[in-house]
């Protein structure tokens, strides 16, 4: 079994970080997921970003001092079909050659009820930036903490789906980005 071993590594890394005074909590990308769900003719279609990096620095007791930074490899978007994956990397969609990463950089974190936090920051996709606020639920579990949230965005705001795809009657304008991030507790 891999899991206990991984847990040890995570724990060991967390401890090391603690002693060395490294600011960022270790994010376990193998257990974390970032997805984007679009609606095609009202059919929800979920794709997963297979590659991303996240740097989190968060203490629930001091949310205002926390920060989050996410960088998503847009070419890693997986819809479960190779030809579709190929196509969303193209110019009309993510244009991954030109814009290989989508990023989120937090600017402020505020408590919003028990285990709930509002994370504000700048979301940049395909070179277009927007200020967003996403509600995040933080769950403490043993040596790890998980961050869960969903952020509805308008794809037109980021030029995702240009040309004939601008027609939002086929692919809806609203796309929901969902994340589940597991990190070692600081």
């Amino acid at each position: 079994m891999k899991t206990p071993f991984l847990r040890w590594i995570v724990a060991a890394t967390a401890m090391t970080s603690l002693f060395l005074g490294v600011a960022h909590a270790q994010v376990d990308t193998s257990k974390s997921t970032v997805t984007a769900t679009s609606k095609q003719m009202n059919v929800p279609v979920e794709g997963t970003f297979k590659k991303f990096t996240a740097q989190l620095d968060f203490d629930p007791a001091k949310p205002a001092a926390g920060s989050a930074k996410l960088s998503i490899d847009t070419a890693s978007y997986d819809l479960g079909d190779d030809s579709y994956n190929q196509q969303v990397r193209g110019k009309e969609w993510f244009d991954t050659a030109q814009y290989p990463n989508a990023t989120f950089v937090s600017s402020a974190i505020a408590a919003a009820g028990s285990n709930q936090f509002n994370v504000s920051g700048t979301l940049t996709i395909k070179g277009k930036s927007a200020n967003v606020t996403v509600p995040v639920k933080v769950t403490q579990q043993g040596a790890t903490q998980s961050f869960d949230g969903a952020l509805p965005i308008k794809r037109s705001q980021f030029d995702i789906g240009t040309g004939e795809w601008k027609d939002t009657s086929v692919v809806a304008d609203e796309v929901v980005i969902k994340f589940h991030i597991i990190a070692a507790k600081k």
Partner: protein
Amino acid sequence: MTTVPPLKQRYSATAMSLHWLIALLIVAGFYLGWIMTDIPGFTPTKLKYFSWHKWIGVTVFMLAVIRLAWRLTHRAPELPRGMPPLQKLAAELAHVILYVLMFVIPASGYLYSSAAGIQVVYLGIVPLPTLIGPDTALKVVLKTIHIWLNYTLLVIVAAHTLAALKHHFIDRDGLLARMIPFLK
């Protein structure tokens, strides 16, 4: 000289309506299925065709349920007297196969969509349950099954149509009038 008297008995209005409505939907669904899969990559048109194709399939399935219920509670008109037993058997067999295909073709397509991880939302309004989870291996199998069932359908429908035309133009036994309103 005695000739075989023309059949007077016809299918009921319900049976005729179901037959022609389903026939029309099957032709439309088959045609859409044929052309949509030839569109490379994905385009808005392709996504529309896929949705329409699935809505048609779901509709055929629901109508087939009603039709089967009707068929099990009603007697179909007799086949022409003097029709060779082997032809009668072939006709009955073709009808049974057509009934089976009206159910299994939409069902295989539905499961194929589920295995591909794409839910069917009927008419873009009613989300239908995904009966199986995404499964790449099963997806390929179901796709093949769906296609071959449709080739079978094409063959049986061709035979069904040609037989009906033969009865009308060669045998002139009035059989076609059982299913066509206003036809003498």
